[in-house]
């Protein structure tokens, strides 16, 4: 998806980085990277995202401090990393 120059200016403001003096340069470089990134847009995926980075669930399973996790449907409960984290923290208490 083509990125507009105005969008990059907006993003730079969000990042609190001033690129006005080099806007054209950043625009070109940004566009090159986004062209590469766009390769994943049309990939067919039939699985949901990893619910936590990498092996986090296995690690939670194996962690003695949260053995209760073995008894739940982790995938169901850990819909998203953020949600899972809060569940984990609650059980820790």
């Amino acid at each position: 998806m083509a990125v507009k120059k105005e969008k990059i200016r907006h993003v730079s403001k969000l990042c609190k980085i001033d690129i006005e003096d080099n806007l054209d340069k950043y625009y070109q470089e940004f566009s090159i990277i986004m062209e590469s990134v766009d390769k994943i847009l049309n990939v067919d995926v039939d699985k949901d995202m990893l619910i936590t980075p990498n092996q986090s669930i296995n690690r939670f399973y194996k962690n003695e401090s949260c053995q209760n996790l073995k008894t739940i449907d982790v995938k169901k409960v850990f819909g998203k990393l953020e949600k899972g984290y809060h569940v984990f923290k609650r059980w820790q208490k």
Partner: protein
Amino acid sequence: MKNLLDLELKKINQMLKEGVIMPIDLVEEFAKKVVASDLNAFITLNLDEARKQARLLEKKEVDNILFGIPIAVKDNIVLQGVPTTCGSKILENYISVFDATVVKKLKEKNMIIVGKTNMDEFAMGGTGETSYFGPTKNPLNKNFSPGGSSSGSAAAVAGGLTPLALGSDTGGSIREPAAFCGLVGLNPTYGRISRYGLVAFASSLDQIGPMSRNVIENAHLFAAINGPSDDDLNTSSEKPFSVDDITKKEKYRIAIPRFCLTKIINADVVSVFLNCLDKIKAAGHQVDFVEVPFMKYAIPLYQVIALAEASSNLLRFDGIKYGYQTENYQDYDDFVTKTRTAGFGTEVKRRIMVGTYVLSSENVDVYYKKALQVRRELTDEIKAVFQQYDLIMTPATVSTSLILGKKREPNESFLQDLLAIPFSMSGHPSLVMPADKIDNMPIGVQIAGRYYDEKTIYAFALELEALVRGDESV
């Protein structure tokens, strides 16, 4: 006595035990070498403290192979009372107030930390050239890059300044410089080593790992720093790796993703890799080509996930809590903007902006969520290969080392990590070691293993090291 630091650890250890040398001799040799060196491998030297520690060690018993050995630590790993810059202007004057867990573990083994090594700014880069403190040179040919982002750690070891170094790896930052400098570098299983005290770049990928001249010394350093840590919830409670766990197998089943032969990979690199496979097959191991189709998405995956996480992690560098501050400003926004604009280098600013863009509300599902789904597919593919094979092998990099000072396209800094990123994404351990040389520059191979199975990687790497050397006793 000269060139003690070039000796194998085993020999140094024996000499220390026999009292032929003292730890201070090793530190003084390092000091002499580093002053004479033009590699720009170090940002900060820790010589006064190193000398003090070496003197203290004279009263202690030599109780392990790492005792008294000088080690270099990448400058994104904190050491109390010593600057940690991450290769950036924005942290130029930041002095850490605590030791990283890995630093504590090195100290427990009585290793001597002699300095903090140069690196690409915030570990973002593959040549060492994005450092605010200038590029590092490759000791094997100073016109070339040592690779990055752990450029200084690789140069320190390859240049004979220290026998060992710590690097960090987010998408190949230990493995690529190891390959370019003819070293051994391990990116361990995600969660094997505490990251407490490692300045975060992309938290679902960042790892600390050992860099060394050979396989067994790498294993010794890994054994010293791995294991659970109360400071880092991400560390695994798996039984920590020990060098004694390394046991040789008669026959390894090794999978080679067919993607490794793609045209993107330099023909010389492919040729060295195939020669290496011939040696492995001749030694009686099973080598099969397999399909891992999602490997081809490694770079865009990394560009979305790593940069999204980086944009979030680097928000903390606003000039208020750490490091550089602008002097002239009107209000809070102006202060933070001027500080970040002047404090970060071009590569970092570009990556922060791309990360912020893919996380924006209109793009988060299109890019970020999709990337997480693709990551899952890739991880499952790699896990499926490990159901049938002990190891996966690939070339370490796309080409040999790159010439310093050349203008590069924005995507070029990611390309060398094409074959390293898949294992960073899946969290599997992988080790890079030298396989041969072309035009006197090293070419490495990568060996990946199952989760927490570094022992099999090391066992096979020891055998491969002997095969590459042409040792017929293997």
